């Protein structure tokens, strides 16, 4: 259900500390309805921490989160709650249980189960087969609902994670470095998937190091560095070259070098 509030997600003055390490220092971040946001920053800049807070993996140390205009209780927020609010995240790595079968990986946390908590295995396997054929496009090739994730290639694993996000039909899909382990052909599939998100009037946060990929699909770019937002640009305001330059400057700054302007 869409409502009239301007932004789908509104994060205000988010702080996150891990012990003495400050990962985020007062971040303001928004995602509009039907908007694709490219979140750009160097390794360790705070991208993953920010989206893990939005996905309910950790609570923020301080700050407010509004989803569809409604304030979220930081203490009660969880991954399950995020799923209920139609927020789905595809993580960059290790987001699947290696020793478990594909069908368990698709449904873990949201099992098709009866009142007593027993899982309808037959139904979960059938749905997994459907996801593989219709959403991901796995055909034959020795991969089945019973295959163990540990035996799949990086691309196949990412496909499973993305297929899961598509299946649960989330309103906001967060992709954290989804193309890191993929071949060029698989990357273009992911980009098509993001275009589909846009066409179906949903929203997406896309995190990647591949600036050209982000540029082709995003509506807006947000730069994050050392736990702070250092710039936000609409696509019309910035060119691909300027983004690349900005990212290089940020990484150079982080490695302690000066850049001549």
């Amino acid at each position, binding site marked *: 259900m869409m409502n009239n509030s301007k932004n789908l997600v509104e994060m205000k003055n988010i702080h996150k500390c891990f012990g003495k390490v400050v990962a985020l220092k007062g971040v303001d971040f928004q995602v509009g309805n039907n908007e694709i946001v490219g979140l750009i920053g160097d390794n360790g800049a705070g991208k993953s921490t920010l989206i893990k807070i939005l996905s309910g993996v950790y609570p923020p140390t301080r700050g407010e989160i509004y989803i569809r205009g409604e304030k979220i209780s930081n203490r009660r927020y969880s*991954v399950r709650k995020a799923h209920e609010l139609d927020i789905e995240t595809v993580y960059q790595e290790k987001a699947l249980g*290696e*020793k478990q079968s594909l069908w368990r990986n698709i449904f*873990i*946390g949201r099992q098709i189960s009866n009142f007593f*908590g*027993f*899982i309808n295995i037959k139904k979960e396997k059938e749905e997994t087969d459907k996801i593989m054929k219709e959403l991901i496009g796995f055909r034959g090739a020795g991969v089945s609902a019973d295959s163990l994730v*540990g035996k799949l290639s990086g691309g196949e694993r990412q496909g499973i994670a993305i297929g899961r996000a598509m299946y649960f039909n989330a309103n906001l899909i967060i992709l954290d470095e989804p193309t890191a382990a993929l071949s060029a052909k698989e990357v273009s599939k992911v980009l098509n998937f993001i275009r589909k998100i846009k066409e179906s009037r949903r929203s997406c946060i896309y995190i990647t190091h591949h600036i050209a990929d982000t540029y082709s699909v995003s509506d807006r770019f947000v730069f994050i560095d050392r736990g702070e937002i250092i710039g936000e640009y609409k696509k019309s305001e910035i060119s691909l070259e300027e983004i690349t330059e900005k990212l290089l400057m940020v990484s150079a700054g982080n490695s302690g070098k000066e850049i001549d302007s």
Partner: protein
Amino acid sequence: MNVRNNKISLLRSKGFRTYAVVLVYIVLMGIFMITAPRAFLDYKIYMAFLSTIPFSLVMALGLTFVIIAGEIDLSFTAVMAFSGFIFTYIFIHTGSTILAFIASLTAGLVAGFINGIIIAKVKVPSIIATLGTQFFWAGLAVVISSGRSLIINEIRPSFMYKIFVGRIGGIVPAQAAWAFGLAIILSFILNKHRFGESAMFIGDNRDTARMMGVNVDRALIQIFMLSGVLAAFASVLLACEMVTWWATQGPGFLLITIAAVFIGGTSIYGGEGTIFGTVVGAFIVGSITAGIVASGVGGFWTQLVVGLVLLSAVFINTFVSKRGR
């Protein structure tokens, strides 16, 4: 290359490991039938196994969930000693088996809950946390009993005595039926219930489990409570069978129960394991003592042989799963 991969995946498959552990048991029984035919060709020794193995088997069932979740519980035998004390003490003072039974299971649940809180919330590694609670519960049992044994001959005529440790058809020990019944239920729970799936994902990769929406802390607390309540149930079976409670009953069960789980093929790295394997593992460990003594080799050899079987089982499992990576 392909042939090699196929071979490895065959070796890695759950089916093969389960098959291997059954094979080990059959070979072991075969050896004992040759070395001690008088004992091992008579049905009575198998009835003896069905009478003694259920105590460690019931505890091994709970421990299987703990180890699949990538944790360890060293306190369950102390919980057994403590909740066994509660059972006998309340029975002696009230004469009610039901009350004693409920109080004993409650003690087990509370002990498991405390383990769970220390591990999931305070984040103390389970090996240290449960080492501490092991000393605590075993110590508490000794202190409040002043180290004296309790004898409950009066329980023999009770209904509970008959259904827990009576002899079905005059031959088969009832505790075996309870242990097998629990094994079947827990096998369903491990494979087909959300609880079992949570245990497997937590043991596989805790961060992943959390990111996928598993309530890791709650599941861990429940897993340790399961281990605690099963230890309490084992204590009731043991108290009924022996008609006695004694303060130092725990330690003798600790290592053989842990060994049973690992011999049964549960991964030392967590994330996978089977209840069926644990059942067979408990029978392997439980039969070795009797087999060695009956073969005339001498009881001193028992530990050495259990150690060798355990090392080989863990070696094979580790080797097979490393090769597959």
